[in-house]
């Protein structure tokens, strides 16, 4: 049995060096050379400043922008480090609401959000993804129906015809991969950037 002790130590250190140091560092080097923008996090710059990542949702509250899904992410409470406070789209602390199907807190939150959206656009059914929080709290996407639902508000805030806004939405819908995998969706940040560009013209 004693002769197993040397391999237990040396082999562990060698394999740690290979899999825990050489492998991640080599992948960082190769990925940085092959896919530099993606390896850094698909960052989007506007006028030389980073405005976000193409893959990470951000909070939109103004009427002139399309809104993403509700986010349940939190941040440490500045006044009491043992507690947390709501901090939507906190990209340094991802997470979901973890409220279960029979949660009263969830039922109350859903009702409040649905009522608010119905008063904003009484003519369409409220899409489920627009009132439910995502798993990561950083979902960059909404469904095409959820974008469609917000068109009247955005068009009004921007003094644009609804059809023009609808066209921009349609141009930003991503379908299923090979018509099969995933779900149709609209990247909210990309859509809002496209709107700003259209407005600037």
């Amino acid at each position, binding site marked *: 049995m004693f002769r197993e002790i040397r391999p237990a130590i040396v082999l562990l250190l060698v394999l740690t060096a290979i899999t825990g140091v050489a492998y991640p560092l080599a992948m960082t080097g*190769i990925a940085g050379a092959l896919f530099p923008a993606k390896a850094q996090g698909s960052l989007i710059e506007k006028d030389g400043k980073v405005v976000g990542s193409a893959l990470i949702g951000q909070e939109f509250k103004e009427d002139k922008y399309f809104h993403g899904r509700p986010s349940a992410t939190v941040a440490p409470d500045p006044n009491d480090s043992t507690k947390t406070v709501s901090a939507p789209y906190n990209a*340094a602390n991802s997470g979901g609401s973890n409220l279960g199907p029979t949660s009263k807190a969830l039922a109350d939150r859903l009702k409040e959000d649905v009522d608010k959206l119905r008063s904003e656009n009484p003519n369409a059914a409220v899409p489920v993804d627009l009132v439910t929080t995502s798993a990561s709290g950083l979902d960059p996407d909404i469904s095409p129906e959820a974008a469609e639902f917000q068109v009247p508000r955005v068009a009004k805030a921007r003094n644009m015809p609804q059809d023009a806004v609808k066209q921009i939405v349609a141009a930003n819908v991503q379908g299923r991969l090979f018509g099969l995998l995933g779900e149709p969706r609209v990247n909210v940040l990309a859509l809002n950037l496209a709107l700003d560009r259209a407005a600037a013209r």
Partner: protein
Amino acid sequence: MTLIGWIQIILYCAIIVALTKPLGWYMTRVFNGERTFLSPVLRPIEAGIYWISGVDEKREQHWLTYTVAMLLFHVGGFLIIYGVMRLQAVLPFNPAGQGAVAEDLSFNTAISFITNTNWQNYGGESTVSYLVQMVGLTHQNFLSAATGIALAVALIRGFSRASVRTVGNFWVDVTRSTLYVLLPICVLYALFLVSQGMPQTLGDYVEATTLEGAKQTIAVGPVASQVAIKMLGTNGGGFFNANAAHPFENPTALSNFVQMLSIFAIGAALTNVFGRMVGNQRQGWAILSVMGVLFVAGVGITYWAEASGTSTLHALSLTGGNMEGKEVRFGIVASSLFAVITTAASCGAVNAMHDSFTALGGMIPLINMQLGEIIIGGVGAGLYGMLLFVVLAIFVAGLMVGRTPEYVGKKIEAREVKMAMLAILVLPLMYLGWTAVGVVYPAAVASMANAGPHGFTEVLYAFTSATGNNGSAFAGLTGNTFFYNLTLASAMFVGRFFMIVPAMAIAGSLAAKKSIPPSAGTFPTTGGLFVGLVVGVILIIGGLTFFPALALGPIVEQLAMNAGQVF
């Protein structure tokens, strides 16, 4: 449920079946020590590793030596993880300036990673440095997976060899698993993941100014290299807190599909390795069929439950299924499928929050783990877990016809059955026993996030996941407390090693037996009758053990939900 949803599920199953044979062929060659197409590159490295660590690759080990070597290896792995977590504040690769991780959390995480559980009481981007992610977590992702494969191969050798005292050399098996199987796949896989948008950088967290002028700190890191092995090795511990739901940890529908494939690939291929090594590939296909029957049934139920939604959603006329805790790019079907896969295997990565699943939709992941994660299962662990059930099923069949049971040419006798029962019974002792404590001990009760039966399910899920070395969670439960850090660690430890040691004892005892040729009285173990028998034994043993606990949790919650009750 939609047609396109079912097509995705069928496509998934078809690709897994198609991968089983070629990967099984390759892995069989690796573990028989034969040449492969990677040998010209890897053989010199392999020989160098044996030389420097003093391993004689020709010398085989008795099952007890093999097991002791495995345990020694894990003691070292534990010390490395615990050490770098405690010391991360003064070590390099810490751009976010994370402080030392607390003692109980470091202990829990170290146990979690050496047991291939990868339960996340730590917060990923908010708790640990890049160094911990690489040297502590990425490396142990490889080694706990390589260990699982090695143990499965040793057990297979127990069946395939006759009248010998040895089951292989642990050091050789672990090195070959790492070098020839895990590492080459991970290199290609990690690059694919980066091509889908997954970050791979050692740079600082990014400070962005959003379109509305708010500040957003975006956590990045060497994500892809860790995610590749996290999925392939059925580890499941996320780089980020939200795991595979985080857009950086699973950017596209394609990355999601490939991640799901990689969870099952090696586990499925090991059934083929088993078939090849015992000299009849149909023995492997029969085992894969048992797994397939249970898997498809689970997918069907969870997909149906999630697509049906909840009473709360229906009351507000919200259609489209239960999207709380799910990502738009995956939708209902890919989230449901992922949840069943990750718990059937002992992966535990999640692309949706299981805590927010419907009662029945969340019950299937729970059942998958309580059955012992034998539906494909963890790399290696799934196969040896399933073989324990096969031993029992064969024993039951032998009782029915009054003959000494045999399986692939080996007599199954009292010692094997006792060891199999020990390994199978220790699991419910852990998860039911600790759950009983967790729902009455006041400090533990305070950790529940949801009230009513759902809170009970959170506790049951946590201990089931820890015991099964899964690592997924009903994540509302606050696990990072002194009570949970210690009790979950004990469940993970017992769930892993109290299953491994009896399984290895069976390997040793079988290897020493003579091989007997099949006769007219031998129960055929490649047909539908055998598959049905094993499925039946699994469901009966499982059902008798945990049905009462399920009745208190998801089942009563479903009834309450149908009655429109909230808590």
